[in-house]
């Protein structure tokens, strides 16, 4: 029977539960990820009285959380995107600041170094100026290494951050797995009801996970949620988790990668497949900013060191000795992958800094004698065939050559890093001021006995980087022309297959294995890189040149004697031809033994000029002027950038990436706020609303209590009526 007491009590109980839920909402107003809960009320089944149904009060049918799954997923996705850019921007800003700061950046270091060079050029015999140059060389090295060290530190910080992220991800994954287990049990026990708070907690854990790495969720029928990362690797399956770990990069044990336990094959590196979240941001930053910056800085360091060294070798110091290295030049790195199964190895040599890029390269062994070299920045490939010889040295590619020792297994990989250690390995070599080679090693002397009006111009050493063309005039003779300066170095030289051809301080060999070159064939030596003209019809080939400037005969005594006012003979020259009956034109450049100068005017028959070592020339600054000129010469990026240009490119590149990250940061932040707002609009607790609800249910409770009181009064009346 429908009884007033029962109905009153049902109202009371319903109001009480509703109040409890409202109280729960109010208490959790500041709980992260909490979705407000509403009490669903429904009428109890009515009872039939005669031909009408009497209501039976109210019951709580469900306590639901107000929740839109789509909005929550939006927030999660946007959290990942924003987290990635946020981390990226944070780290990129510090590199940006470092490079842009004019006192710590390397641009002013380069400037000061060249100022010191100019000072020596102004006063070459001054020990003070020379000592100052040595100090500035040290400063330049310090400067590069300061920036380099900061970059190295960032690598360390990124490693630490990756490690922390991985352990946090593991902890969160475990948390989600536990919650999955609890939710499955709770859902089963409630047979249809939802464990709202547990679900909220799991959502919060998932959002926190999304901050670290982008995740995909798959709902299961039993209420659990499976979590996938990367390209579909499962992180949480029901109440089980897979652990992420830290593995070493295959080429660099100090570089942390994210590892995933994959069945029986141990930990597989999955860094390349992860994106989003702060972990994705860290990995992006390391690849796009740190790696590029270190390589670009290295390239500038290598460029400066090798260009200055080469020119320094062409000078003479205060002791009359030829100049040595001013700086150490880093050797390109070649590392075997730790996953290699073969025994092959690779080393790399620097050919010229001008052709260096800022990219790393991968060498893959395909089997047979075939390797593929891939430039990682743009995917450009070069095919290499060793033809079976081991060790095999390739021709120059992008400024380096590789020497491959056979023994690799198919699929073996090697990482070639031409510029990575450029700044690490930069150091100043000279400590003795008198060893700075400011003078040109040779000098021209005009005897007083000359009767004509011919005078000698300034003599200088040929630049070993000049583009020199070896032009065959027949299959047994060739001419040599320095195409950069237009000077003829030799004419009518007799050709023998395989014998040394040396000019300007390099040596190469042209060999023909039986099929001689044809007249008109040309070969070029340009910055140490040898090439054959594409139109060659003969069977000769040129091998890789070795550079060892200057020409060994540079300081040998040579005499030019005029046999008439238009011809001269040369005695004592070891490089260059012809040496007898050479035609003379006023102002024409004469080159032998790796030097060149011009005679202008009209010589008389019998006049002579002697070229010999500049033994006493402490006041000569000729070589210093050449070194100073390197500051404004385009010696990097295939002749399109000076040292400072290349450094400037690095600064601008990081600046642009940081600026782009900043813009993305703002945009994604706005997007995240928007989606959070949308979610909060549905699920967030509004205290004023809850206050109104509280009043509502309070009144309902009071009214229901009154109903019970009324039912008691009715019962009392009945009892009183029975008792008389």
């Amino acid at each position, binding site marked *: 029977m429908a009884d007033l007491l029962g109905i009153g009590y049902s109202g009371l109980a319903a109001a009480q539960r509703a109040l409890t839920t409202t109280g729960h909402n109010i208490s959790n107003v*500041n709980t992260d990820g909490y979705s*407000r809960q509403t009490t669903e009320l429904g009428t109890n089944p009515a009872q039939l009285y005669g031909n009408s149904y009497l209501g039976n009060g109210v019951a709580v049918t469900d306590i639901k959380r107000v929740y839109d799954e789509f909005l929550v997923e939006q927030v999660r996705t946007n959290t990942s995107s924003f987290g990635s850019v946020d981390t990226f921007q944070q780290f990129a*800003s510090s590199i*940006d600041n470092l490079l*842009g700061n004019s006192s710590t950046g390397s*641009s002013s270091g380069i*400037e000061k170094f*060249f*100022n010191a060079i*100019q000072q020596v*050029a*102004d*006063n*070459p*015999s*001054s020990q003070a100026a020379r000592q100052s140059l040595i100090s500035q060389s040290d400063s330049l090295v310090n400067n590069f290494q300061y920036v380099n060290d900061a970059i190295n530190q960032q690598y360390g910080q990124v490693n630490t951050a990756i490690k922390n992220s991985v352990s946090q991800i593991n902890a969160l994954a475990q948390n989600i797995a536990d919650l999955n287990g609890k939710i499955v049990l709770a859902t089963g026990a409630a047979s249809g009801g939802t464990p709202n708070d547990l679900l909220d907690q799991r959502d919060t854990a998932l959002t926190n996970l999304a901050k670290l790495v982008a995740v995909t969720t798959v709902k299961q029928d039993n209420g659990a949620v499976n979590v996938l990362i990367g390209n579909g690797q499962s992180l949480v399956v029901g109440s089980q988790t897979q652990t992420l770990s830290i593995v070493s990069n295959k080429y660099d044990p100090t570089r942390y990668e994210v590892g995933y336990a994959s069945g029986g094959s141990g930990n597989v590196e999955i860094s390349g497949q992860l994106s989003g979240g702060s972990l994705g941001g860290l990995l992006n930053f390391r690849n796009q900013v740190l790696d590029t910056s270190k390589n670009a800085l290295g390239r500038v360091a290598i460029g400066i060191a090798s260009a200055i060294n080469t020119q320094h070798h062409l000078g003479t110091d205060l002791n009359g000795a030829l100049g040595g290295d001013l700086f150490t030049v880093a050797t390109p790195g070649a590392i075997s992958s730790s996953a290699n199964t073969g025994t092959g190895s690779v080393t790399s040599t620097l050919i010229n800094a001008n052709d260096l890029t800022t990219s790393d390269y991968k060498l893959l062994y395909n089997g047979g004698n075939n390797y593929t070299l891939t430039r990682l920045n743009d995917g450009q490939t070069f095919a290499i065939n060793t033809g079976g010889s081991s060790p095999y040295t390739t021709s120059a590619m992008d400024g380096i050559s590789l020497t491959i020792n056979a023994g690799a297994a198919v699929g073996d990989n090697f990482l070639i890093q031409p510029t990575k250690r450029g700044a690490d390995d930069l150091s100043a070599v000279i400590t003795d001021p008198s060893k700075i080679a400011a*003078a040109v090693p040779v*000098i*021209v*002397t*005009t005897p*007083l*006995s000359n009767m004509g009006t011919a005078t*000698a111009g*300034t003599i200088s050493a040929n630049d070993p980087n000049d583009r020199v063309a070896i032009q065959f005039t027949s299959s047994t003779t060739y001419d040599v022309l320095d195409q950069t300066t237009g000077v003829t170095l030799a004419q009518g030289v007799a050709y023998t297959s395989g014998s040394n051809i040396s000019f300007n301080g390099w040596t190469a060999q042209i060999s023909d294995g039986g099929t001689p070159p044809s007249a008109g064939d040309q070969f070029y030596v340009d910055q140490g890189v040898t090439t054959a003209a594409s139109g060659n019809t003969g069977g000769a080939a040129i091998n890789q040149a070795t550079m060892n400037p200057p020409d060994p005969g540079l300081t040998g005594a040579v005499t030019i004697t005029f046999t008439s006012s238009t011809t001269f003979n040369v005695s004592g020259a070891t490089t260059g031809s012809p040496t007898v009956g050479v035609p003379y034109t006023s102002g024409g450049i004469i080159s032998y033994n790796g030097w060149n100068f011009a005679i202008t005017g009209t010589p008389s028959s019998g006049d002579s000029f002697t070229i010999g070592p*500049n033994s*006493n*020339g*402490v*006041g*000569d*600054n*000729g070589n210093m*002027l050449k070194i*100073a000129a390197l500051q*404004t010469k385009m010696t990097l990026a295939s002749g399109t950038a000076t040292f*400072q240009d290349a*450094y*400037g490119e690095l*600064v*601008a590149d*990081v*600046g*642009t990436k*940081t*600026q782009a990250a*900043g813009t993305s940061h703002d945009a994604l932040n706005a997007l995240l706020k928007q989606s*959070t*707002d949308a979610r*909060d*609009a*549905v699920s*967030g*607790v*509004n*205290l004023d609303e809850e*206050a*109104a609800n*509280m*009043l509502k249910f309070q009144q309902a409770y009071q009214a229901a209590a009154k109903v019970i009181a009324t039912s008691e009064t009715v019962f009392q009346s009945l009892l009183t009526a029975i008792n008389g």
Partner: protein
Amino acid sequence: MRISTSQIYQRAADGILDQQALLSKTQIQMSTGKKVVTPSDNPAGSAQIVELQHSVDLTNTYQKNIDTAQAALGSEENALSSSTDILQRVRELTVQANSGALSDQDRQAIAQQIQQHISSLLGLANSRDGNGDYLFAGYSTNTLPFNQTAAGFNYAGDQGQRFIQIGANRQVAVGDSGYDVFQAIKNGNGTFATSYNNTNTGTGVIDAGQMTNLTSWVPDTYTLTFITPTTYEVRDSSSALITSGTYQSDAAIAFNGIQVSVSGAPAAGDVFTIAPSSNQDMFTTLQNLANALNTSVTDSTARAKLNNDINQALTNIDRALDKVTNIRAGVGARLNSVDNQKSANGDLINASQIALSAVQDLDYTEAASRLNQQLLGLQAAQQTFVKLQNLSLFNFIQ
């Protein structure tokens, strides 16, 4: 649209944080005076700034180099100017010494003065600059350029000429070697030189001669021999006869595009030589003169020899003067071009700094008004927050 309580607080807090960030940025800009604080503020602008800064620094270095160049050229000009004075003084003395009224002692006195002048000239040739480097030693700046031995004057320097970078593509020479200034001086009239034989017994005095037709001149050593006191022959180095004729005092003897003249009374067998000019340093010229003046004149033959010597000396001194003037003109031209380059460099520095300022420097007016605006924004955000957080239904429920 529904708003949750946490959203209200979050939005207010975000608003305040955003305003603070903008304010902080403006503050940094105003305290550094730069619009571009980090490269990411304006990557393209940063690259430009680096370029312009580099241009300014490099051009300033060239200006410093120019100072060095000007000092060096100045020192050289001083030494050359003093050398000119000495040579002119000696020339005056030489003209004086040619007078027939002087006695041996008079001439010896003049010779002594000339000896002094030779020392002074040697001293000038061995000048040093402020760093202790020899000005006229070529590249061998630590080596004493000129010294005198019994055999003559020795040049121990080399023929190098140092250059200094004064502009992007400009180098200027900052010295001349002692070889060029003091040694490589062609004697005679520059093309050929006349001399007399020591064994002559007549009183013939030959002049320096002159070029009449350069294209007909055949450089060779010619011998002018007096067969008799009134006839002469000119033969070349292979003894071929070029011309001959009757001798008349002061009349021109012309051949192969040149002409010379002899005055006085040459004896039969007297020989004069006409040879292409060769190099003779100015010290030797002056020393020869001093030696000639120290020789006593006993008869007319000796007098004729003295006159010949003085003629030669005067000609050679003129050549030396020409040479020094020539070099001085070169130094003058270099100093001019250095001055021009200095002002061109100055202009470039100015232009670069103006461009640099445009890209880099903060417009304080704009920044100040922006700062005020942002302060206002921050204040508004903060005040709104205070007002909002006071409103709650719970305040009104008993």
